[in-house]
């Protein structure tokens, strides 16, 4: 894991000292809200419906146990005993008081964490595959590159006032678990002639104009990454529209200017920048790669694991859904579900955070990850430890076996917290999960991604959900629109609107109808919802959702 050097520590202490003074001046009246707002946003402080919110970056989703314990401490000391993990590998605290936030930031700095550039029109927290360094299908761990990008983009003097926010995601394997095609820049690691490099994707994004990113360079040698990124962002910085907030993201810049023109400008700028970097970045990267060296894996005997798997059906069910293949045969990647049926997706209590920290220390070489699907991952667990780990998780309400299933729902905060919301999303997620638990059907249904946003900004990724739900305000009443066939992986697609929206009372039965209907439509038990949708098209699914329309037509 990356360890802060003296420069990082001093920089963060100085930033926190400055922000403390800014908060003091706001409270004593020397700064108006208009003056203070850009300053607080630079430091991750939002104002939501009921309180301030502090968004803390978890760079590329990686934490050690000491950091997780500190997150628990913040939740307990300055919040209401819990934190909310988000789709961009951040944690949000929903109830801090303004005058406590400087202390919270100092406490975070003690464990090398911060809230810098988690909001505002800057390059945001760089996200990465949550299985980085552990996945069997990986070419290289993407985190050294992600850390390099973080250092380059943090306080980058040219990129503090971009036309709009800017999000970068990296995956180290051809299989995309980081939704790179829905980011301003997505980096997908590939190999050419045995050398690792990146497919560079630009102009993806969700929000009111969802777009799948376009390949701007099909193969970029790894060594050219930073100058190339700087070229893209500087071209965008000049070309991006500042006259209209809704047209300011790079996806619109690419759309309006055309990919070819962007490509030309980027390559021209890159030609200039490449020499200026002069290899400093590569020396830094080599140093970072050493810091991200894998742990000293121990050899594990898998006999006990296999016996438990055969004999204990509850354990088996959890293994079947929550375990992913590790690069070592005697290890496993464990996903801890923060989606207990009926709970708020992505929330963890301080006690749960502490337990996960303890378990990471005991069983997982001290490493934890936060996934964009709002779950926690223990990336390296020796298989012989799995039965004991599962028992400990289960006892703390963290043993839910539903990763990738209907109740593993992404939901944004929605109208329960968010000042921009047009409807609630959390209660819809809670009700859907509770209903599927009652039906005892989700294992039978298999791989299904339901994603819910409480407004058009799409923080809940609904456009890339197999089933997306968008909460709207229709004449003062909550109304939910369904999209179908979205996909956030390497075969990305934007979901299509199914038809008229549903009321808060009707949306859960509509989803149930849709999923039960899919079971009748699928060709085999292995055909997933998305595959069935792609094979059959929207018509049969719409007919299930809107039976009245079918009757009228008949």
């Amino acid at each position, binding site marked *: 894991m990356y360890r802060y050097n003296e420069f990082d520590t001093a920089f963060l202490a100085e930033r926190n000292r400055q922000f403390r003074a800014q908060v003091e001046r*706001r*409270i*004593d*009246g020397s700064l*108006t*809200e208009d003056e203070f707002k850009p300053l607080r946003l630079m430091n991750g402080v939002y*104002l*939501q*419906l*009921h*309180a*301030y919110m502090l968004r803390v970056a978890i760079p590329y989703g990686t934490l050690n146990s000491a950091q997780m314990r500190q997150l628990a401490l913040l939740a307990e000391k300055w919040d*209401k005993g819990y934190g909310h993990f988000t789709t961009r590998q951040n944690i949000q605290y929903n*109830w*801090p*008081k*303004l*005058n406590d936030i400087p202390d919270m930031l100092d406490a975070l700095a003690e464990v090398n964490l911060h809230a810098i550039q988690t909001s505002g029109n800057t390059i945001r927290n760089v996200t990465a595959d949550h299985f980085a360094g552990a996945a069997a299908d990986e070419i290289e761990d993407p985190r050294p590159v992600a850390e390099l990008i973080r250092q380059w983009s943090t306080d980058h003097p040219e990129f503090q006032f971009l036309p709009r926010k800017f999000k970068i995601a990296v995956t180290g394997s051809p299989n995309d678990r980081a939704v790179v095609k829905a980011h301003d820049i997505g980096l997908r690691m590939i190999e050419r002639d045995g050398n690792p490099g990146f497919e560079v994707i630009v102009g993806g994004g969700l929000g009111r104009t969802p777009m799948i990113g376009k390949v701007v360079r099909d193969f970029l040698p790894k060594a050219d990454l930073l100058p190339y990124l700087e070229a893209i962002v500087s071209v965008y910085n000049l070309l991006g529209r500042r006259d209209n907030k809704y047209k300011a993201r790079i996806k619109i810049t690419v759309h309006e200017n055309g990919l070819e023109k962007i490509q030309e400008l980027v390559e021209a700028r890159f030609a200039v920048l490449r020499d200026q970097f002069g290899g400093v970045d590569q020396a830094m990267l080599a140093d970072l790669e050493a810091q991200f060296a894998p742990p000293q894996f121990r050899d594990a005997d898998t006999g006990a694991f296999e016996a438990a798997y055969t004999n204990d059906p509850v354990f088996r069910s959890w293994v079947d859904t929550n375990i992913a293949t590790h690069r070592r045969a005697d290890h496993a990647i464990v996903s801890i579900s923060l989606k207990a049926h009926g709970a*708020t997706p992505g929330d963890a209590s301080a006690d749960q955070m502490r337990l996960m920290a303890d378990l990471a220390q005991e069983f997982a070489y001290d490493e934890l990850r936060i996934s964009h699907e709002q779950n926690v991952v223990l990336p390296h667990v020796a298989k012989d430890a799995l039965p004991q780990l599962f028992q400990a998780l289960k006892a703390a309400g963290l043993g839910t076996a539903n990763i990738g299933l209907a109740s593993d729902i992404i939901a944004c905060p929605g*109208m*329960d*917290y968010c000042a921009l*919301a047009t409807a*609630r999303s*959390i*209660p819809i997620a*809670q009700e859907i999960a509770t209903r599927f638990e009652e039906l005892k059907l989700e294992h039978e249904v298999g791989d299904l991604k339901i994603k819910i946003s409480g407004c058009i900004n799409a923080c809940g990724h609904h456009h890339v959900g197999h089933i997306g739900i968008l909460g709207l*305000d229709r004449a*003062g*009443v*909550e109304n939910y629109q369904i999209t179908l066939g979205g996909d956030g992986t390497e075969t990305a697609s934007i979901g299509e609107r199914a038809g008229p929206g549903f009321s808060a009372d009707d949306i859960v039965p509509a989803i149930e109808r849709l999923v039960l209907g899919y079971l009748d439509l699928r060709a085999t038990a292995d055909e997933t919802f998305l595959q069935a949708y792609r094979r059959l098209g929207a018509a049969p699914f719409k007919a299930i959702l809107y039976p009245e329309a079918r009757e009228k037509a008949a």
Partner: protein
Amino acid sequence: MPREFTPKVVTANALIEGDVIYLTEDDRWSRALEEAEVLTDEAHAELRLLDASARQSEIVGAYLADVKLAGGTAAPTHFREDFRRTGPSNYFHGKQAES
């Protein structure tokens, strides 16, 4: 025809706590909607909002929110304002837990 002016209250978030507050007739900030001054005259409402917005060291983001009169006190007309005066629905937190 100009739209008829519907009753309003001045609301904002408290500077330090960040929670929802309402302007009362005697220029206090109350945490209860029932104590808010109900504004039925447009010119007066604009004036009250201006006064409130000037109190920068106490509040953030003052605006006029629609209310209806129920038994002499103000009640929200839109679900957003209903959540603001109650708290989130997933936990018993916020105003609903404080009274």
